[in-house]
Protein backbone atom coordinates (compact mmCIF):
# COMPACT_ATOMS: atom_id res chain seq x y z
CA UNK A 1 0.00 0.00 0.00
CA UNK A 2 1.23 3.48 -0.70
CA UNK A 3 2.06 5.67 2.23
CA UNK A 4 -0.34 8.57 2.63
CA UNK A 5 0.75 12.17 3.21
CA UNK A 6 4.14 11.04 4.50
CA UNK A 7 5.92 14.43 4.86
CA UNK A 8 2.96 15.88 6.80
CA UNK A 9 2.92 13.04 9.33
CA UNK A 10 6.70 12.93 9.57
CA UNK A 11 6.97 16.62 10.41
CA UNK A 12 4.02 16.44 12.79
CA UNK A 13 5.55 13.53 14.71
CA UNK A 14 9.06 15.01 14.57
CA UNK A 15 7.75 18.32 15.94
CA UNK A 16 5.91 16.49 18.72
CA UNK A 17 9.07 14.60 19.66
CA UNK A 18 11.29 17.70 19.69
CA UNK A 19 8.80 19.73 21.71
CA UNK A 20 8.35 16.82 24.10
CA UNK A 21 12.11 16.50 24.46
CA UNK A 22 12.50 20.20 25.21
CA UNK A 23 9.72 19.98 27.80
CA UNK A 24 11.39 16.98 29.45
CA UNK A 25 14.61 18.84 30.10
CA UNK A 26 13.14 22.19 31.09
CA UNK A 27 10.15 21.51 33.36
CA UNK A 28 10.38 22.11 37.09
CA UNK A 29 7.73 19.56 37.97
CA UNK A 30 8.98 16.02 37.44
CA UNK A 31 5.48 14.72 36.70
CA UNK A 32 5.17 17.18 33.83
CA UNK A 33 8.51 15.97 32.50
CA UNK A 34 7.28 12.39 32.69
CA UNK A 35 4.14 13.31 30.76
CA UNK A 36 6.21 15.02 28.08
CA UNK A 37 8.42 11.93 27.84
CA UNK A 38 5.34 9.72 27.40
CA UNK A 39 4.24 11.96 24.52
CA UNK A 40 7.69 11.67 22.95
CA UNK A 41 7.68 7.89 23.29
CA UNK A 42 4.25 7.53 21.73
CA UNK A 43 5.22 9.80 18.84
CA UNK A 44 8.33 7.66 18.37
CA UNK A 45 6.17 4.53 18.21
CA UNK A 46 4.17 6.19 15.43
CA UNK A 47 7.45 7.01 13.62
CA UNK A 48 8.42 3.35 13.86
CA UNK A 49 5.12 2.52 12.15
CA UNK A 50 6.06 4.94 9.38
CA UNK A 51 9.37 3.08 9.03
CA UNK A 52 7.44 -0.16 8.50
CA UNK A 53 8.58 -1.57 11.85
CA UNK A 54 5.29 -2.45 13.57
CA UNK A 55 6.76 -4.96 16.01
CA UNK A 56 9.26 -2.47 17.43
CA UNK A 57 6.39 0.05 17.68
CA UNK A 58 4.31 -2.43 19.67
CA UNK A 59 7.25 -3.26 21.94
CA UNK A 60 7.86 0.47 22.45
CA UNK A 61 4.26 1.09 23.49
CA UNK A 62 4.07 -1.89 25.82
CA UNK A 63 7.51 -1.69 27.43
CA UNK A 64 8.53 1.94 27.26
CA UNK A 65 5.29 3.92 27.51
CA UNK A 66 3.30 1.34 29.45
CA UNK A 67 6.02 -0.12 31.67
CA UNK A 68 9.05 2.08 32.20
CA UNK A 69 7.06 5.31 32.43
CA UNK A 70 4.67 3.76 34.96
CA UNK A 71 7.76 2.84 36.98
CA UNK A 72 9.04 6.41 36.74
CA UNK A 73 5.68 7.82 37.83
CA UNK A 74 5.52 5.45 40.81
CA UNK A 75 8.98 6.49 41.98
CA UNK A 76 8.21 10.20 41.50
CA UNK A 77 5.17 9.79 43.68
CA UNK A 78 6.93 7.73 46.33
CA UNK A 79 9.64 10.31 46.90
CA UNK A 80 8.22 13.68 47.89
CA UNK A 81 9.29 15.78 44.99
CA UNK A 82 7.40 18.98 45.69
CA UNK A 83 10.26 20.31 47.76
CA UNK A 84 12.65 19.67 44.88
CA UNK A 85 10.50 21.75 42.54
CA UNK A 86 11.18 24.85 44.62
CA UNK A 87 14.96 24.51 44.58
CA UNK A 88 17.35 25.60 41.89
CA UNK A 89 16.78 23.50 38.79
CA UNK A 90 19.96 23.74 36.77
CA UNK A 91 23.34 22.91 38.24
CA UNK A 92 26.38 25.19 38.43
CA UNK A 93 28.10 23.95 35.28
CA UNK A 94 25.16 24.43 32.95
CA UNK A 95 27.19 26.64 30.61
CA UNK A 96 29.88 23.98 30.18
CA UNK A 97 27.15 21.45 29.50
CA UNK A 98 25.61 23.60 26.77
CA UNK A 99 29.02 24.20 25.18
CA UNK A 100 29.74 20.46 25.16
CA UNK A 101 26.35 19.73 23.61
CA UNK A 102 26.93 22.44 21.00
CA UNK A 103 30.28 20.85 20.13
CA UNK A 104 28.55 17.50 19.74
CA UNK A 105 25.91 19.14 17.57
CA UNK A 106 28.60 20.67 15.39
CA UNK A 107 30.17 17.23 15.03
CA UNK A 108 26.84 15.77 13.89
CA UNK A 109 26.27 18.54 11.35
CA UNK A 110 29.79 18.12 9.99
CA UNK A 111 29.33 14.38 9.56
CA UNK A 112 25.97 14.63 7.90
CA UNK A 113 26.99 17.33 5.46
CA UNK A 114 30.42 16.02 4.45
CA UNK A 115 29.69 12.32 4.07
CA UNK A 116 26.57 12.86 2.02
CA UNK A 117 27.92 15.56 -0.27
CA UNK A 118 27.79 14.43 -3.86
CA UNK A 119 26.07 11.14 -3.09
CA UNK A 120 22.41 10.31 -3.08
CA UNK A 121 21.03 11.27 0.27
CA UNK A 122 20.34 7.74 1.56
CA UNK A 123 17.34 7.33 -0.72
CA UNK A 124 14.28 5.51 0.50
CA UNK A 125 14.06 1.91 -0.54
CA UNK A 126 13.19 1.37 -4.15
CA UNK A 127 10.38 -0.97 -3.36
CA UNK A 128 7.89 -0.49 -0.59
CA UNK A 129 8.05 -3.57 1.58
CA UNK A 130 4.80 -4.17 3.33
CA UNK A 131 4.63 -4.95 6.98
CA UNK A 132 2.52 -8.05 6.79
CA UNK A 133 5.40 -10.37 7.65
CA UNK A 134 7.41 -8.16 9.97
CA UNK A 135 6.78 -10.07 13.21
CA UNK A 136 7.40 -13.38 11.49
CA UNK A 137 10.72 -12.16 10.05
CA UNK A 138 11.89 -10.85 13.40
CA UNK A 139 10.91 -14.18 14.91
CA UNK A 140 12.98 -15.91 12.22
CA UNK A 141 16.01 -13.80 13.09
CA UNK A 142 15.60 -14.48 16.79
CA UNK A 143 14.48 -18.07 17.03
CA UNK A 144 14.99 -19.95 13.77
CA UNK A 145 17.47 -22.79 13.98
CA UNK A 146 18.91 -22.17 10.53
CA UNK A 147 18.65 -18.48 9.84
CA UNK A 148 18.53 -17.05 13.35
CA UNK A 149 21.60 -15.26 14.65
CA UNK A 150 20.31 -13.69 17.82
CA UNK A 151 19.31 -16.66 19.95
CA UNK A 152 22.32 -16.29 22.24
CA UNK A 153 21.72 -12.55 22.63
CA UNK A 154 18.10 -13.30 23.48
CA UNK A 155 19.09 -15.66 26.28
CA UNK A 156 21.66 -13.19 27.60
CA UNK A 157 19.01 -10.47 27.59
CA UNK A 158 16.69 -12.62 29.70
CA UNK A 159 19.56 -13.28 32.11
CA UNK A 160 20.17 -9.52 32.27
CA UNK A 161 16.53 -8.94 33.13
CA UNK A 162 16.77 -11.52 35.92
CA UNK A 163 19.82 -9.72 37.35
CA UNK A 164 18.00 -6.39 37.08
CA UNK A 165 14.93 -7.72 38.91
CA UNK A 166 17.00 -9.12 41.77
CA UNK A 167 19.13 -5.96 41.88
CA UNK A 168 16.14 -3.61 41.99
CA UNK A 169 14.46 -5.64 44.74
CA UNK A 170 17.64 -5.69 46.85
CA UNK A 171 18.34 -1.98 46.31
CA UNK A 172 14.90 -0.88 47.37
CA UNK A 173 14.56 -3.05 50.47
CA UNK A 174 14.64 -1.37 53.83
CA UNK A 175 16.72 -4.04 55.53
CA UNK A 176 18.79 -6.40 53.47
Amino acid at each position, binding site marked *: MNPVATPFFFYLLAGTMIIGGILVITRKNAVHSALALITTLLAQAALYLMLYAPFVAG*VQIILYAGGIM*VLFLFVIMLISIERAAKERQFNKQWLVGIVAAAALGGLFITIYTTTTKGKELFPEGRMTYGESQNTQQIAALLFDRGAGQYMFAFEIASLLLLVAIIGAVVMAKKRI
Partner: protein
Amino acid sequence: MHELIDYIQSYLDPRVTTTPGAAGNIFWATVYILLVFGGLSVAVIAMNWLERKILAHMQVRLGPMRVGPHGLLQPIADAIKLLLKEDIIPAEADAFIFWIAPFMVVLAAFTVFVVVPFGPTHAITDMNIGILFMLGVSSLSVLGIVMAGWASNSHYPLIGALRSSAQMVSYEVAMGLAVLSVILLTSLQGSGLGLYGIGATNPQAYGTLSMIGIVQAQQEQGVWFIFKFFPLGLVGFFIFAIAMVAETNRAPFDLPEAESELTAGFHTEYSGFRWSLFFLAEYSAMIAVSSIAVTLWLGGWLRPFPNALSGPTWDLVFSLIPGISFLLLAAMCFYNVARMPKHPLFKIQTMGLAGFGAVLGLIGLVMFIPAVRDRVNDVFWFAAKVAGFMYLYIWYRGTFPRYRFDQLMKVGWKILLPMGLALLILTAAMGMRTELWAQFQEVVHGL
Protein backbone atom coordinates in the same frame (compact mmCIF):
# COMPACT_ATOMS: atom_id res chain seq x y z
CA MET B 1 -16.49 14.15 -8.41
CA HIS B 2 -16.43 11.08 -10.58
CA GLU B 3 -13.07 10.08 -9.12
CA LEU B 4 -14.50 10.49 -5.63
CA ILE B 5 -17.35 8.12 -6.38
CA ASP B 6 -14.93 5.69 -8.00
CA TYR B 7 -12.72 5.87 -4.94
CA ILE B 8 -15.66 5.13 -2.68
CA GLN B 9 -16.86 2.32 -4.92
CA SER B 10 -13.42 0.78 -5.28
CA TYR B 11 -13.65 -0.75 -1.83
CA LEU B 12 -17.17 -2.08 -2.32
CA ASP B 13 -17.38 -3.55 -5.77
CA PRO B 14 -15.24 -6.64 -6.13
CA ARG B 15 -15.36 -8.76 -3.01
CA VAL B 16 -12.34 -7.10 -1.43
CA THR B 17 -10.61 -9.41 1.00
CA THR B 18 -9.02 -6.88 3.31
CA THR B 19 -10.05 -4.33 5.87
CA PRO B 20 -10.23 -0.68 4.76
CA GLY B 21 -7.10 0.20 6.70
CA ALA B 22 -5.09 -2.54 5.01
CA ALA B 23 -6.52 -1.53 1.63
CA GLY B 24 -5.52 2.08 2.21
CA ASN B 25 -9.03 3.40 1.66
CA ILE B 26 -9.35 6.48 3.87
CA PHE B 27 -13.06 7.09 3.28
CA TRP B 28 -14.21 3.64 4.30
CA ALA B 29 -11.74 3.56 7.19
CA THR B 30 -13.34 6.77 8.49
CA VAL B 31 -16.82 5.30 8.02
CA TYR B 32 -15.80 2.21 9.99
CA ILE B 33 -14.24 4.35 12.71
CA LEU B 34 -17.48 6.33 13.08
CA LEU B 35 -19.53 3.14 13.11
CA VAL B 36 -17.34 1.55 15.80
CA PHE B 37 -17.35 4.73 17.86
CA GLY B 38 -21.12 5.06 17.63
CA GLY B 39 -21.71 1.40 18.34
CA LEU B 40 -19.41 1.58 21.34
CA SER B 41 -21.25 4.57 22.78
CA VAL B 42 -24.60 2.82 22.34
CA ALA B 43 -23.13 -0.30 23.95
CA VAL B 44 -21.89 1.69 26.97
CA ILE B 45 -25.31 3.29 27.43
CA ALA B 46 -27.01 -0.09 27.15
CA MET B 47 -24.49 -1.56 29.61
CA ASN B 48 -25.35 1.12 32.14
CA TRP B 49 -29.06 0.27 31.98
CA LEU B 50 -28.48 -3.47 31.88
CA GLU B 51 -26.15 -3.37 34.86
CA ARG B 52 -28.64 -1.59 37.05
CA LYS B 53 -31.60 -3.75 35.99
CA ILE B 54 -29.81 -7.11 36.10
CA LEU B 55 -28.10 -6.35 39.41
CA ALA B 56 -31.48 -5.28 40.79
CA HIS B 57 -33.23 -8.45 39.67
CA MET B 58 -30.42 -10.54 41.17
CA GLN B 59 -31.02 -8.74 44.44
CA VAL B 60 -34.80 -9.35 44.22
CA ARG B 61 -35.72 -5.75 43.57
CA LEU B 62 -36.80 -3.90 40.47
CA GLY B 63 -34.19 -1.25 39.68
CA PRO B 64 -35.08 1.93 37.82
CA MET B 65 -38.69 1.79 36.68
CA ARG B 66 -39.83 5.39 36.52
CA VAL B 67 -37.69 7.40 34.15
CA GLY B 68 -38.78 5.65 30.97
CA PRO B 69 -40.78 2.48 30.54
CA HIS B 70 -38.93 0.07 32.82
CA GLY B 71 -36.19 2.64 33.30
CA LEU B 72 -35.08 2.61 29.65
CA LEU B 73 -34.39 6.34 29.64
CA GLN B 74 -32.42 6.22 32.91
CA PRO B 75 -28.97 6.31 31.23
CA ILE B 76 -29.98 9.40 29.28
CA ALA B 77 -31.18 11.08 32.47
CA ASP B 78 -27.86 10.17 34.13
CA ALA B 79 -25.91 11.61 31.21
CA ILE B 80 -27.84 14.89 31.32
CA LYS B 81 -27.31 15.15 35.07
CA LEU B 82 -23.58 14.54 34.73
CA LEU B 83 -23.22 17.12 32.00
CA LEU B 84 -25.00 19.78 33.99
CA LYS B 85 -23.11 19.26 37.24
CA GLU B 86 -20.71 21.86 38.59
CA ASP B 87 -17.10 21.27 37.57
CA ILE B 88 -15.07 21.21 40.77
CA ILE B 89 -11.29 21.21 40.81
CA PRO B 90 -9.75 20.82 44.25
CA ALA B 91 -7.52 23.64 45.42
CA GLU B 92 -3.79 22.82 45.34
CA ALA B 93 -4.49 20.28 42.62
CA ASP B 94 -2.24 20.24 39.59
CA ALA B 95 -4.76 21.64 37.10
CA PHE B 96 -3.10 20.47 33.90
CA ILE B 97 -2.68 16.86 35.00
CA PHE B 98 -6.14 16.88 36.63
CA TRP B 99 -7.56 17.91 33.26
CA ILE B 100 -5.59 15.50 31.12
CA ALA B 101 -5.91 12.29 33.20
CA PRO B 102 -9.48 11.35 32.13
CA PHE B 103 -8.54 11.97 28.52
CA MET B 104 -5.61 9.58 28.74
CA VAL B 105 -7.83 6.82 30.10
CA VAL B 106 -10.49 7.42 27.44
CA LEU B 107 -7.83 7.56 24.72
CA ALA B 108 -6.39 4.24 25.81
CA ALA B 109 -9.81 2.63 26.06
CA PHE B 110 -11.02 3.78 22.64
CA THR B 111 -7.89 3.41 20.52
CA VAL B 112 -7.91 -0.31 21.25
CA PHE B 113 -10.92 -0.79 18.99
CA VAL B 114 -8.92 -0.03 15.85
CA VAL B 115 -7.97 -3.69 15.49
CA VAL B 116 -10.98 -5.49 16.97
CA PRO B 117 -12.26 -7.89 14.29
CA PHE B 118 -16.00 -7.99 13.84
CA GLY B 119 -15.69 -10.09 10.71
CA PRO B 120 -13.05 -11.24 8.20
CA THR B 121 -13.05 -7.82 6.57
CA HIS B 122 -15.04 -5.90 9.17
CA ALA B 123 -12.30 -4.28 11.17
CA ILE B 124 -10.95 -0.76 10.89
CA THR B 125 -7.55 -2.15 10.08
CA ASP B 126 -5.66 -5.35 10.50
CA MET B 127 -2.25 -4.68 11.96
CA ASN B 128 0.46 -7.27 11.83
CA ILE B 129 0.82 -6.87 15.61
CA GLY B 130 -2.90 -6.82 16.43
CA ILE B 131 -2.97 -8.48 19.84
CA LEU B 132 0.29 -6.81 20.91
CA PHE B 133 -1.19 -3.43 20.03
CA MET B 134 -4.34 -4.14 22.05
CA LEU B 135 -2.42 -5.24 25.13
CA GLY B 136 -0.01 -2.32 24.87
CA VAL B 137 -2.57 0.42 24.41
CA SER B 138 -4.77 -0.92 27.19
CA SER B 139 -1.74 -0.74 29.49
CA LEU B 140 -1.62 3.01 28.82
CA SER B 141 -4.74 3.46 30.93
CA VAL B 142 -2.59 2.73 33.99
CA LEU B 143 -0.82 6.03 33.32
CA GLY B 144 -4.10 7.94 33.29
CA ILE B 145 -5.21 6.39 36.56
CA VAL B 146 -1.89 7.13 38.29
CA MET B 147 -2.06 10.72 37.13
CA ALA B 148 -5.68 11.08 38.24
CA GLY B 149 -4.81 9.93 41.74
CA TRP B 150 -1.73 12.16 41.90
CA ALA B 151 -3.38 15.31 40.60
CA SER B 152 -6.22 15.17 43.09
CA ASN B 153 -3.79 16.07 45.89
CA SER B 154 -5.67 14.06 48.48
CA HIS B 155 -5.00 10.84 50.40
CA TYR B 156 -7.81 8.60 49.26
CA PRO B 157 -7.33 9.16 45.53
CA LEU B 158 -3.57 8.67 45.82
CA ILE B 159 -3.86 5.38 47.68
CA GLY B 160 -6.65 4.27 45.38
CA ALA B 161 -4.62 5.14 42.29
CA LEU B 162 -1.49 3.37 43.50
CA ARG B 163 -3.46 0.28 44.48
CA SER B 164 -5.39 0.28 41.23
CA SER B 165 -2.30 0.63 39.08
CA ALA B 166 -0.39 -2.03 41.06
CA GLN B 167 -3.33 -4.38 40.54
CA MET B 168 -3.57 -3.65 36.81
CA VAL B 169 0.14 -4.10 36.26
CA SER B 170 0.17 -7.41 38.15
CA TYR B 171 -2.70 -8.91 36.21
CA GLU B 172 -1.29 -7.75 32.89
CA VAL B 173 1.48 -10.32 33.38
CA ALA B 174 -1.01 -13.16 33.80
CA MET B 175 -3.01 -11.90 30.83
CA GLY B 176 0.10 -11.77 28.70
CA LEU B 177 1.04 -15.36 29.50
CA ALA B 178 -2.44 -16.64 28.68
CA VAL B 179 -2.41 -14.71 25.39
CA LEU B 180 1.04 -16.09 24.61
CA SER B 181 -0.19 -19.66 24.86
CA VAL B 182 -2.86 -18.89 22.28
CA ILE B 183 -0.33 -17.29 19.94
CA LEU B 184 1.62 -20.54 20.10
CA LEU B 185 -1.50 -22.39 19.00
CA THR B 186 -1.91 -20.25 15.89
CA SER B 187 1.23 -21.71 14.39
CA LEU B 188 -0.08 -25.25 14.29
CA GLN B 189 -1.00 -26.72 10.95
CA GLY B 190 -4.58 -26.84 9.92
CA SER B 191 -6.73 -28.37 7.28
CA GLY B 192 -5.02 -26.55 4.43
CA LEU B 193 -7.61 -23.94 3.64
CA GLY B 194 -4.65 -21.64 3.09
CA LEU B 195 -6.12 -18.63 4.76
CA TYR B 196 -4.48 -15.33 5.57
CA GLY B 197 -0.99 -15.70 6.93
CA ILE B 198 -1.21 -19.38 7.80
CA GLY B 199 0.98 -21.61 5.68
CA ALA B 200 -0.78 -24.91 6.05
CA THR B 201 1.52 -26.96 3.88
CA ASN B 202 4.67 -25.10 4.83
CA PRO B 203 6.51 -27.08 7.49
CA GLN B 204 7.94 -23.85 8.86
CA ALA B 205 4.55 -22.24 9.27
CA TYR B 206 4.67 -19.17 11.40
CA GLY B 207 2.03 -18.11 13.86
CA THR B 208 0.44 -14.71 13.68
CA LEU B 209 -0.27 -11.85 16.03
CA SER B 210 -2.98 -10.31 13.88
CA MET B 211 -6.47 -10.55 15.34
CA ILE B 212 -8.07 -11.58 12.07
CA GLY B 213 -5.29 -14.14 11.61
CA ILE B 214 -5.99 -15.68 15.03
CA VAL B 215 -9.66 -16.23 14.20
CA GLN B 216 -8.73 -17.61 10.80
CA ALA B 217 -6.30 -20.00 12.51
CA GLN B 218 -9.22 -21.27 14.57
CA GLN B 219 -11.30 -21.56 11.44
CA GLU B 220 -8.55 -23.51 9.70
CA GLN B 221 -7.87 -25.84 12.60
CA GLY B 222 -11.60 -26.41 12.91
CA VAL B 223 -11.79 -25.89 16.66
CA TRP B 224 -12.17 -22.89 18.96
CA PHE B 225 -9.00 -22.46 20.98
CA ILE B 226 -10.95 -22.87 24.21
CA PHE B 227 -11.42 -26.52 23.33
CA LYS B 228 -7.95 -27.09 21.90
CA PHE B 229 -5.76 -29.65 23.71
CA PHE B 230 -8.46 -30.07 26.28
CA PRO B 231 -8.13 -28.88 29.13
CA LEU B 232 -5.24 -26.55 28.27
CA GLY B 233 -7.35 -24.13 26.26
CA LEU B 234 -9.93 -24.05 29.01
CA VAL B 235 -7.31 -23.27 31.68
CA GLY B 236 -5.90 -20.47 29.53
CA PHE B 237 -9.39 -19.08 29.05
CA PHE B 238 -10.03 -19.12 32.79
CA ILE B 239 -6.75 -17.40 33.57
CA PHE B 240 -7.57 -14.69 31.06
CA ALA B 241 -11.17 -14.37 32.25
CA ILE B 242 -10.05 -13.79 35.85
CA ALA B 243 -7.19 -11.49 34.87
CA MET B 244 -9.41 -9.37 32.64
CA VAL B 245 -11.87 -8.72 35.47
CA ALA B 246 -8.98 -7.57 37.66
CA GLU B 247 -7.52 -5.53 34.81
CA THR B 248 -10.67 -3.45 34.46
CA ASN B 249 -11.05 -2.90 38.23
CA ARG B 250 -14.41 -4.65 38.39
CA ALA B 251 -15.96 -6.75 41.12
CA PRO B 252 -14.71 -8.83 42.84
CA PHE B 253 -11.42 -6.97 42.30
CA ASP B 254 -12.80 -3.46 42.72
CA LEU B 255 -11.25 -2.57 46.08
CA PRO B 256 -9.48 0.51 44.65
CA GLU B 257 -12.68 2.10 43.54
CA ALA B 258 -15.46 0.71 45.67
CA GLU B 259 -17.49 3.34 47.47
CA SER B 260 -17.50 1.62 50.80
CA GLU B 261 -13.75 1.16 50.90
CA LEU B 262 -11.86 4.20 49.75
CA THR B 263 -14.61 6.72 49.02
CA ALA B 264 -14.43 5.89 45.33
CA GLY B 265 -10.65 5.69 45.06
CA PHE B 266 -8.87 7.49 42.26
CA HIS B 267 -11.95 9.23 40.89
CA THR B 268 -13.11 10.67 44.24
CA GLU B 269 -12.37 14.27 43.33
CA TYR B 270 -13.79 14.02 39.84
CA SER B 271 -17.37 15.17 39.35
CA GLY B 272 -19.71 15.72 36.45
CA PHE B 273 -18.37 15.35 32.97
CA ARG B 274 -14.89 14.19 34.03
CA TRP B 275 -16.33 11.36 36.10
CA SER B 276 -18.48 10.29 33.18
CA LEU B 277 -15.30 10.07 31.07
CA PHE B 278 -13.79 7.62 33.59
CA PHE B 279 -16.98 5.62 33.64
CA LEU B 280 -17.09 5.57 29.81
CA ALA B 281 -13.47 4.43 29.72
CA GLU B 282 -14.13 1.66 32.24
CA TYR B 283 -17.01 0.20 30.26
CA SER B 284 -15.11 0.52 26.98
CA ALA B 285 -12.15 -1.27 28.54
CA MET B 286 -14.50 -4.04 29.68
CA ILE B 287 -15.82 -4.44 26.14
CA ALA B 288 -12.27 -4.32 24.77
CA VAL B 289 -10.87 -7.10 26.96
CA SER B 290 -14.01 -9.15 26.34
CA SER B 291 -13.34 -8.73 22.62
CA ILE B 292 -9.83 -10.06 23.17
CA ALA B 293 -11.18 -13.07 25.05
CA VAL B 294 -13.80 -13.73 22.38
CA THR B 295 -11.30 -13.42 19.53
CA LEU B 296 -8.62 -15.55 21.10
CA TRP B 297 -10.60 -18.36 22.68
CA LEU B 298 -14.18 -18.28 21.49
CA GLY B 299 -13.63 -18.09 17.75
CA GLY B 300 -14.42 -14.43 17.09
CA TRP B 301 -17.05 -14.14 14.44
CA LEU B 302 -17.38 -17.88 13.75
CA ARG B 303 -20.75 -19.43 14.40
CA PRO B 304 -21.06 -22.26 16.93
CA PHE B 305 -20.43 -25.85 15.81
CA PRO B 306 -18.83 -25.19 12.43
CA ASN B 307 -17.79 -28.83 12.01
CA ALA B 308 -20.31 -30.90 13.91
CA LEU B 309 -23.25 -29.12 12.31
CA SER B 310 -21.94 -28.15 8.90
CA GLY B 311 -23.63 -27.88 5.55
CA PRO B 312 -25.90 -25.37 3.86
CA THR B 313 -29.07 -26.21 5.83
CA TRP B 314 -27.33 -25.74 9.19
CA ASP B 315 -25.76 -22.53 7.83
CA LEU B 316 -29.23 -21.28 6.98
CA VAL B 317 -30.58 -22.20 10.42
CA PHE B 318 -27.74 -20.43 12.19
CA SER B 319 -28.09 -17.37 9.99
CA LEU B 320 -31.72 -17.00 11.00
CA ILE B 321 -30.77 -16.68 14.66
CA PRO B 322 -30.02 -12.89 14.61
CA GLY B 323 -33.49 -12.09 13.32
CA ILE B 324 -35.12 -14.55 15.73
CA SER B 325 -33.30 -13.06 18.73
CA PHE B 326 -34.45 -9.53 17.89
CA LEU B 327 -38.01 -10.80 17.44
CA LEU B 328 -37.76 -12.45 20.86
CA LEU B 329 -36.69 -9.14 22.40
CA ALA B 330 -39.64 -7.42 20.68
CA ALA B 331 -41.97 -10.13 22.02
CA MET B 332 -40.65 -9.50 25.56
CA CYS B 333 -41.38 -5.78 25.12
CA PHE B 334 -44.94 -6.45 23.99
CA TYR B 335 -45.48 -8.89 26.85
CA ASN B 336 -44.45 -6.18 29.30
CA VAL B 337 -46.74 -3.73 27.51
CA ALA B 338 -49.61 -6.08 28.26
CA ARG B 339 -48.52 -6.20 31.90
CA MET B 340 -48.38 -2.43 32.37
CA PRO B 341 -50.91 -1.02 34.88
CA LYS B 342 -54.07 0.22 33.16
CA HIS B 343 -53.84 3.65 34.81
CA PRO B 344 -54.25 6.76 32.62
CA LEU B 345 -50.95 8.17 33.96
CA PHE B 346 -49.09 5.18 32.54
CA LYS B 347 -50.27 5.81 29.00
CA ILE B 348 -47.09 7.50 27.81
CA GLN B 349 -44.88 4.78 29.25
CA THR B 350 -47.02 2.07 27.65
CA MET B 351 -46.86 3.77 24.28
CA GLY B 352 -43.10 4.28 24.64
CA LEU B 353 -42.49 0.63 25.43
CA ALA B 354 -44.72 -0.45 22.54
CA GLY B 355 -42.78 1.84 20.21
CA PHE B 356 -39.47 0.41 21.43
CA GLY B 357 -40.79 -3.10 20.91
CA ALA B 358 -41.94 -2.16 17.41
CA VAL B 359 -38.47 -0.83 16.54
CA LEU B 360 -36.84 -4.01 17.78
CA GLY B 361 -39.30 -6.11 15.81
CA LEU B 362 -38.62 -4.08 12.69
CA ILE B 363 -34.86 -4.63 13.08
CA GLY B 364 -35.53 -8.34 13.52
CA LEU B 365 -37.59 -8.49 10.36
CA VAL B 366 -34.93 -6.59 8.42
CA MET B 367 -32.41 -9.18 9.53
CA PHE B 368 -34.30 -11.88 7.66
CA ILE B 369 -33.52 -10.34 4.27
CA PRO B 370 -30.79 -12.55 2.68
CA ALA B 371 -28.55 -9.64 1.63
CA VAL B 372 -28.56 -8.19 5.15
CA ARG B 373 -28.32 -11.66 6.68
CA ASP B 374 -24.98 -12.49 5.07
CA ARG B 375 -23.38 -9.22 6.08
CA VAL B 376 -24.72 -9.07 9.61
CA ASN B 377 -23.97 -12.68 10.55
CA ASP B 378 -20.33 -12.23 11.54
CA VAL B 379 -20.94 -9.02 13.49
CA PHE B 380 -23.94 -10.56 15.28
CA TRP B 381 -22.07 -13.62 16.53
CA PHE B 382 -19.17 -11.48 17.72
CA ALA B 383 -21.50 -9.05 19.49
CA ALA B 384 -23.50 -11.91 21.01
CA LYS B 385 -20.40 -13.48 22.53
CA VAL B 386 -19.19 -10.13 23.89
CA ALA B 387 -22.67 -9.56 25.32
CA GLY B 388 -22.36 -12.90 27.10
CA PHE B 389 -19.15 -11.67 28.70
CA MET B 390 -20.86 -8.43 29.77
CA TYR B 391 -23.54 -10.49 31.47
CA LEU B 392 -20.81 -12.45 33.24
CA TYR B 393 -19.28 -9.19 34.49
CA ILE B 394 -22.61 -8.12 35.97
CA TRP B 395 -23.16 -11.58 37.42
CA TYR B 396 -19.76 -11.46 39.15
CA ARG B 397 -20.64 -8.10 40.63
CA GLY B 398 -23.88 -9.38 42.03
CA THR B 399 -22.46 -12.58 43.44
CA PHE B 400 -18.88 -12.37 44.71
CA PRO B 401 -17.65 -10.53 47.79
CA ARG B 402 -14.76 -8.21 47.37
CA TYR B 403 -11.15 -9.36 47.54
CA ARG B 404 -8.94 -7.67 50.09
CA PHE B 405 -5.95 -6.03 48.47
CA ASP B 406 -3.30 -8.43 49.72
CA GLN B 407 -5.47 -11.39 48.69
CA LEU B 408 -5.84 -9.75 45.30
CA MET B 409 -2.09 -9.43 44.80
CA LYS B 410 -1.55 -12.96 46.08
CA VAL B 411 -3.96 -14.33 43.48
CA GLY B 412 -2.26 -12.35 40.73
CA TRP B 413 1.33 -13.21 41.49
CA LYS B 414 1.28 -16.50 43.38
CA ILE B 415 -1.57 -18.33 41.68
CA LEU B 416 -2.21 -16.99 38.17
CA LEU B 417 1.41 -16.36 37.19
CA PRO B 418 2.69 -19.91 37.91
CA MET B 419 -0.43 -21.33 36.28
CA GLY B 420 0.21 -19.21 33.21
CA LEU B 421 3.83 -20.34 32.99
CA ALA B 422 2.89 -24.00 33.39
CA LEU B 423 0.17 -23.54 30.76
CA LEU B 424 2.68 -22.01 28.35
CA ILE B 425 5.14 -24.89 28.75
CA LEU B 426 2.42 -27.54 28.47
CA THR B 427 0.90 -25.89 25.40
CA ALA B 428 4.29 -25.73 23.71
CA ALA B 429 4.95 -29.38 24.59
CA MET B 430 1.55 -30.50 23.30
CA GLY B 431 1.96 -28.52 20.09
CA MET B 432 5.36 -30.06 19.40
CA ARG B 433 4.50 -33.50 20.71
CA THR B 434 5.39 -35.44 17.56
CA GLU B 435 8.79 -33.80 17.23
CA LEU B 436 9.49 -34.16 20.95
CA TRP B 437 8.47 -37.82 20.90
CA ALA B 438 10.70 -38.48 17.91
CA GLN B 439 13.68 -36.85 19.61
CA PHE B 440 12.98 -38.72 22.82
CA GLN B 441 12.98 -42.01 20.95
CA GLU B 442 16.26 -41.07 19.26
CA VAL B 443 17.84 -40.41 22.62
CA VAL B 444 16.48 -43.67 24.04
CA HIS B 445 17.70 -45.69 21.07
CA GLY B 446 21.10 -44.06 21.26
CA LEU B 447 21.57 -45.17 24.86
